[in-house]
């Protein structure tokens, strides 16, 4: 073995350790960079010398998949939790007030009228309580609608975000496959992969997908039914349309931009924030509204039916107490005829002006009219509140659970991929020692060569 080749060994050792020390620097510099994956040199023996064969990203691919899965769940449950919290505020009757209390006052007003059927004050009180009742129905209904609208306006933004992430991923795909083709080894490739992980994880919060890594290092992303969003360097953008939505024509539906039929793909968005918002808009809020409408229409129909059996102050048969054409929570109204003449309230059961009919109407509160004859009007309302409470409690629990799972998984990933300063310090000491030794070796070899040269002189 020649002295010259020993010098080469020393050079390789110095360079390799320099690379390793640089990596320690990169790791320490990025100790607090979110999504950064630590890198380490892989030393290969290049007989008789050494090289840094590749710079490895230390990560667990399966953990990434699990984390993305939790991101879907978190996005979904967070969207639901946030919106349900707002709906719960509307229905929060824990401190009294609200529909329950007004219904009670409404029934009482009929009873009071039955005790004094000719009393103008009692009639006036009944009409104003009825108006308060109808207006609280309106405000509940309006507030639910405005939450639906609010949710609706978020949908195009989310779709935009999906498109942006998808095209970012496509860009990175193109650059990664270039790197792979050239066979360049540097930290650039790893940082591109880190970026792509970040985008995937952001995208995972919005919409559910699965992805595969192609042989050229690019990835393809597919929605839940296998429709592609990203294929290598090709992106399939999403779009929103407002078309014939069943409950509201201004509601957005998700479609593929290039689909000439604009086929609605809401149903294949099954997880993530977008799915959570669609669910709240189309089922959650809509469901509560339906129940509120049932309540309003039962009140209108039942009271009108009984009211028509009685007689007013002028011996006429009662007409509709509530406007029979407005049977939704959003538009329930006391009939104009009653509002303009309170003496049209049919309190009497006979033409003689007793209060029996008012008392019959007051007794509607005890009749099992709702849920196929299983609950009263008040019970039904209480069950709406109970249901919302249950939904919110479930959503909160789900959110907590997924947040915990996600943070456990993130912790686990940090355990594998995160930077530990202590470890880097130890590595620094190690590589520094290696570097010092290599330098010492170099000067020893240099002396050897000198000695050899002096023999010749």
């Amino acid at each position, binding site marked *: 073995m020649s002295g010259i080749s020993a010098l080469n060994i020393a050079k390789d050792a110095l360079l390799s350790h320099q690379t390793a020390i640089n990596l320690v620097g990169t790791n320490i510099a990025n*100790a*607090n960079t979110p999504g950064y994956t*630590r890198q380490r040199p892989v030393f290969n023996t290049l007989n008789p010398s050494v090289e840094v064969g590749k710079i490895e990203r230390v990560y667990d691919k399966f953990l990434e998949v699990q984390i993305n899965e939790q991101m879907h769940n978190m996005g979904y449950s967070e969207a639901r939790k946030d919106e349900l919290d707002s709906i*719960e505020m509307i229905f929060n*009757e*824990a401190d009294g007030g609200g529909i*329950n*209390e007004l219904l*009670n006052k409404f*029934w*009482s007003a009929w*009873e*009071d009228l039955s*005790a004094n*059927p*000719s009393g103008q004050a009692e009639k006036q009180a009944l009409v104003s309580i009825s108006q308060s009742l109808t207006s609280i129905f309106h405000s509940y209904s309006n507030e639910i609608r405005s939450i639906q609208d609010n949710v609706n306006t978020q949908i195009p933004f989310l779709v935009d975000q999906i498109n942006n992430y998808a095209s970012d991923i496509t860009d990175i795909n193109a650059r990664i496959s270039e790197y792979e083709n050239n066979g360049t080894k540097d930290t650039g490739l790893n940082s591109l992969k880190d970026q792509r992980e970040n985008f995937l994880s952001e995208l995972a919060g919005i919409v559910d997908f699965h992805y595969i890594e192609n042989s050229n290092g690019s990835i393809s992303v597919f929605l839940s039914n296998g429709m592609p969003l990203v294929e290598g360097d090709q992106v399939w953008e999403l779009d929103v349309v407002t078309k014939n939505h069943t409950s509201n024509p201004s509601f957005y539906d998700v479609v593929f931009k290039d689909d000439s039929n604009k086929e609605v793909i809401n149903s294949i968005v099954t997880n993530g924030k977008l799915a959570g918002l669609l669910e709240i808009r189309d089922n959650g809020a809509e469901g509560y509204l339906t129940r509120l409408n049932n309540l309003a229409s039962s009140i209108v129909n039942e009271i009108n039916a009984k009211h028509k*059996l009685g*007689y007013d102050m*002028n*011996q*006429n*048969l009662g007409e509709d107490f509530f406007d029979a054409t407005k049977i939704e929570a959003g538009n329930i109204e006391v009939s104009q005829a009653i509002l303009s003449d309170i003496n049209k309230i049919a309190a009497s*059961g*006979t*033409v*003689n*002006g*007793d*209060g*029996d009919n008012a*008392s*019959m109407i007051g*007794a509607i*509160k*005890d009749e099992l009219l709702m849920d196929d004859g299983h609950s009263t009007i*008040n*019970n039904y309302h*209480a069950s709406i*509140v*109970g*249901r*919302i*409470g*249950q*939904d*919110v*409690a479930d959503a*909160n629990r789900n959110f907590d659970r997924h947040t915990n799972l996600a*943070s456990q998984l*993130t*912790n686990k990933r*940090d355990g594998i*991929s*995160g*930077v*530990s*300063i*202590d470890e880097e*310090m130890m590595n620094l*000491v190690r590589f520094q020692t290696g570097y010092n030794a290599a330098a010492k070796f170099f000067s020893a070899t240099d002396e050897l060569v000198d000695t050899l040269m002096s023999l010749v002189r």
Partner: protein
Amino acid sequence: MVMRISENMKFNTIVNNMFKSQDSYNKLSEKIGTMKKINRPSDDPIGMNKVLNLRESRASIKQYTRNIEGSESWLTITESRLTHAGNLLVKAREVAAAQSTATATVETRNFEADTMQQIMEELLVIANSKYGGRYLFSGTKTQEVPFSSSVTLAAETGVAVAADGNTFDGVAASGGDYTGSANKTYVVKIIDGGAIGAATYQISSEGGKADSWSATSIVPANGEIFLGDGMDMTFTAGSTDLATNDIFYVNAKTPGNYDGNDGELSIGIGEGTSFAYSISGEAAFTNKGGGNVDIFNILNKLKLALENNEPDVIASCIDDIEASSDQITKNISSCGTRMNRLEIAKSNLIDLDYNLAELISDTEDADMSEIITKLAMKETALQATYATASKIGSLTILDFLR
């Protein structure tokens, strides 16, 4: 294998723990602030549902209690009016007893005839008393003066009245002689509108109560329909046909001076329990509808006997006046019985209300001692978290590398 601990893990764990401790600390302090464990439906959905239903029950109880209190006042006034009437009858009996003896003279009898006139007038005022704008003794016709000063000897078929809102603008006239035994209101309701001879109708003899309607019949071509109890009603066409829900009614009266009816005012005092609280003037002052003696008639008879100086007739009135007193007393005791029943119902409701309040409190109110203990625990946990957080980063290998 040893778990690697990265810098992010250290910080994230501490921050997460801090958030968790703060969250549960805040939730507890909210409960302390509101003294409630249910501050929104999701805190306890089933409990919230229960509370709302219990609140509804309490609101009903409050209303029933108010109904009972209203009826109690009505009965108290009724009782005092009847007691006053009883006192007048005692006076009348004294007059009759004194003036039936041989010591009485034409002059004393003439003088006492005036007394009797005053007693009768006062009794009429009592029988026509109002409470809260309604006549106490007119049955369910609370806006109708129950007793008139003039006595009719024959039954009366009232004038047929068309309700204000009717479409029909022809004439409806009543006819026939009423043969029934109590004051009633007959109502004709048009079921399917149409011309006379085509329209159909139903009749109610109970003022048009929902369940009192006869079968549907067609108005005959001559426009005459029979109401029952000897009465009829005849329609004469106008420019507009009979329309659905047109209402016509006739008040039928038995002989005497009572213009009310035999209905009773009632009010709900519990779920599905209605309570009749009015005393019918018919039963209290006349010989119909549960009464035995026509009191006004007896007093009038006594007054006439006094004017005409007829000792035998005066003497015969004593028994009748005693029977009248008995009748009034019977009704006074009926007031008492009803008030007792109301009192019992009310005290039951008060008990029930107390129980419900307790149930609501159990469901929604926070157990303060428990929460304060928990809060103290959370406080300790939070302090420990802060202490740990302040230490983080102070111990690293950097301190030892020189």
